[in-house]
């Protein structure tokens, strides 16, 4: 009987185990050689990327039916997928653990890696509509993943329809008659970029900016804001309706990406993440979600 009880205890302990277990690092890979390897051909774009520190990123985008693109990115043990129906403005996006197909979460390290991939793609791919459709939708999906907040589900459907899903603000991206370069003191202000957060709602003036949209300068990778009549490099932190400009304010994607979509939701997202909140701040979740369809489906302004 004692042996039997001992057996019961042993089985129970084995079955319960420890909730901790040994730390696991699924997806850990040796660093790959640094840089982007890109192949663009009829109907498909694919390649690899490494920042020289983390494991290799593999990516592909191919047309699986006319106007429908299958995008896959593999990094850090995670698979990111998107099926984009460009004709109908619908995209099914997902992200999961490659080893077991279970749900996972976008982490800071993942965002950093995807952001670097996005920058590399922007540097190599032709800008705007000059890129093939496969390359363009790959770039847009990668941009979305590079900004994906940890608190938002990886599996989601992005649906875009102009006028309902997104509103174009192309005209505000021009100043002094030009899409890029100096405004020459002649601005075309958009009022207001808005967000809501712990400081207040959309109507709180500290959550609003008066913005010059477009590619009109940058300073050390940052934007400018007006302080006492002078343009200062950096970002205001919940000032009351400051004037801001630079690093492609209002453009879909982080900074100046390869596409030139200027939209209302992207402007509001920039108004949140460039106003004292981190790119993946939970306070900017709703702006990110609203801007997702803009990024995937809005046309380029030029």
């Amino acid at each position, binding site marked *: 009987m004692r042996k039997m009880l001992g057996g019961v205890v042993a089985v129970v302990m084995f079955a319960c185990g420890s909730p901790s277990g040994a730390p696991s690092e699924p997806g850990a890979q040796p660093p790959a050689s640094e840089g982007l390897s890109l192949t663009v051909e009829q109907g498909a774009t694919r390649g690899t990327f490494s920042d020289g520190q983390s494991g290799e990123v593999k990516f592909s985008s191919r047309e699986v039916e006319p106007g429908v693109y299958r995008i896959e990115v593999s990094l850090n043990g995670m698979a990111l997928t998107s099926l984009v129906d460009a004709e109908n403005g619908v995209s099914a996006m997902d992200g999961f653990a490659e080893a077991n197909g279970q749900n996972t*979460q976008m982490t800071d390290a993942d965002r950093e890696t995807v952001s670097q991939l996005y920058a590399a793609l922007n540097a190599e791919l032709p800008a705007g509509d000059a890129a093939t459709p496969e390359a363009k939708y790959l770039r847009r999906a990668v941009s979305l993943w590079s900004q994906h907040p940890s608190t938002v589900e990886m599996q989601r459907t992005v649906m875009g329809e102009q006028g309902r899903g997104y509103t174009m603000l192309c005209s505000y991206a021009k100043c002094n008659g030009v899409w890029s370069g100096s405004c020459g003191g002649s601005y075309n202000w958009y009022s207001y970029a808005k967000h809501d957060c712990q400081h207040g709602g959309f109507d709180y003036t500290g959550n609003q900016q008066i913005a010059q949209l477009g590619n009109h300068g940058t300073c050390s990778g940052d934007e400018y804001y007006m302080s006492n009549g002078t343009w200062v490099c950096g970002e205001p932190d919940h000032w009351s309706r400051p004037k801001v400009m630079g690093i492609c304010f209002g453009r879909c994607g982080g900074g100046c990406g390869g596409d030139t979509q200027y939209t209302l939701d992207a402007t509001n997202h920039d108004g949140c993440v460039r106003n004292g909140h981190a790119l993946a701040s939970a306070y900017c979740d709703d702006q990110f979600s609203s801007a997702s369809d803009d990024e995937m489906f809005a046309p380029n302004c030029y």
Partner: protein
Amino acid sequence: MARSSRYGGAAWVVRVAGLLLALATLACGSPAEKKREAAQATVRRFFTALPAGDCAVLGPLLATGGSARPCATTVEELHSHGFELVDIVSAEVDGRDANAVLVRAKVAREGTVRDEPVILRVELQDGGWRLRL
């Protein structure tokens, strides 16, 4: 008959093994279930204690390192935004990290419940389950 006596012992072993397995299942959930329960308990404890704002209580429930900020900063932000836990929708072990649980929670800001649940990450640190905010 010979067949019966020969396999009688094996049948007894199978029955005992089945009984042990049933006992084990009853005695405790699977390791994954224990993690899920522990993570959900951490989330509930944190948000129950949040209104008082006492970092002596809240601090040990928060993950440290990485992008984590000091407890007081986190609590101040959550307070100023009127952040409340409404309910926990589900919890699952992160497919890439056996020492992290993703807790889907309905939350409210300033009394308004968000339509979409947010994903809260709870990590095993120093033997305890801690919320990463």
